[in-house]
């Protein structure tokens, strides 16, 4: 009996989740980085809550982007190194399905975890409780978008020895709209104005990358597989 694309998709998601949980250090590394970087700011700056609140959205978002970037390097590299990527590529399902499943699983274990620990960071940075919902939503949209953008970069750089530096150079400029609108949404929520416009923009970026990035990343991967 043949396997449909959906079944293949979920099987790969399961595979990725299982692999991630067998390697907890890979999961924890970006999270701990996120926590440490963000808590260094209150220590390094004066303890004025108003100042901290002003810079909180920017700090939160820069740290989130950098920590998500840390984990992107592993997205395809492990599979490329041990030859399992070739097995996946020859599974009879398009590379688009494989890339989409791997990227979604990557977000589920790294992006969602980051969103879940962000209230701790938010509290450390003095973000009021009322702004938490916006912060969580914007981070969820932002990290998912970043995973898709990162998949394209990771697909292009797996064959390179110093790929992780190049990956940052490719992905970070593309992620600037996320930083701008993500930080804007959080800031508006802190100041009590409506963050809806910025959130809509983030959601639009997310939909845009969800629909197009799998194809771009599959094309990038095909080039590097050759």
């Amino acid at each position, binding site marked *: 009996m*043949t396997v449909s694309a959906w079944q293949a998709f979920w099987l790969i998601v399961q*595979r990725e989740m299982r*692999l991630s949980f067998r390697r907890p250090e890979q999961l924890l590394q970006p999270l701990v980085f996120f926590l440490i970087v963000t808590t260094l700011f209150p220590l390094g700056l004066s303890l004025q809550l108003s100042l901290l609140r002003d810079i909180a959205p920017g700090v939160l978002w820069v740290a989130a982007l950098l920590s998500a970037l840390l984990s992107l390097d592993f997205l395809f590299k492990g599979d490329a190194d041990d030859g*399992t990527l070739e097995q996946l*590529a*020859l599974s009879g399902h398009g590379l688009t399905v494989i890339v989409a499943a791997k990227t979604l699983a990557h977000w589920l274990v790294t992006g969602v975890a980051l969103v879940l620990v962000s209230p701790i960071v938010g509290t450390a940075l003095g973000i009021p409780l009322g702004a938490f919902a916006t912060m969580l939503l914007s981070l969820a949209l932002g990290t998912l978008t970043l995973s898709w953008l990162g998949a394209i970069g990771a697909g292009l750089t797996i064959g390179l020895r110093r790929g992780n530096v190049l990956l940052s150079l490719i992905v970070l400029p593309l992620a600037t709209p996320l930083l701008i609108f993500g930080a804007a949404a959080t800031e508006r929520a802190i100041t009590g104005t409506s963050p809806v416009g910025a959130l809509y923009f983030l959601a639009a970026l997310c939909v845009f990358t969800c629909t197009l990035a799998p194809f771009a990343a599959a094309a990038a991967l095909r080039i590097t*597989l050759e």
Partner: protein
Amino acid sequence: MNMSNALCVEKVHVWRGDRHVLQGVSAQVQPQELLHISGPNGAGKTTLLRVVSGLLRPEQGSVSWLGQSIAAIRTDYQATLAYASHEPALKGDLTALENLRFAVGLKRRITADELRASLARTGVAACADLPARVLSAGQRRRVAMARVLAMSAKVWLLDEPYTNLDAAGSELISELLQTHVVGGGLALVVAHHELKLGCQVRRLELNS
């Protein structure tokens, strides 16, 4: 294009940088036939297998399956393949059984019992629940062979399947190859030594 050829490689040229690795290689393989690819190191044997699998696009020439170019029917064609590269391609953190489940499960629906049966067939039933990272090189090779077996694919592409195996292991590979080919399958095998099999074997010698 010749429809009678199941798998047809026509005048394939591949360059790797400045190196002209495959220089107009042609070959045909029919069901119940095995193509034994040999040649010195660097002659392009692995490259040829990658071209036949569709992982690598040749700069010139074509590969066709049942009269159709594989570039046009890539995913359908790849669903009929079982490819074993010279690395065993196993995830060290997954057990042998999980490795098989996630690889074979993408090709066809398969139960754990069937997977255990193919592990038993290649003599590694006892390794089913061990993480692949603790297995020896020979055991990993056998698990990789169990994966090929479980895929029940029409075309086998095996890159040096005899590496790291003891005498009994080598005999087992030959036996499995023979059963597959006699049963109507096709196989392309890269091997450095003479293959003594009770089935139709064609030779393709590549020169560097």
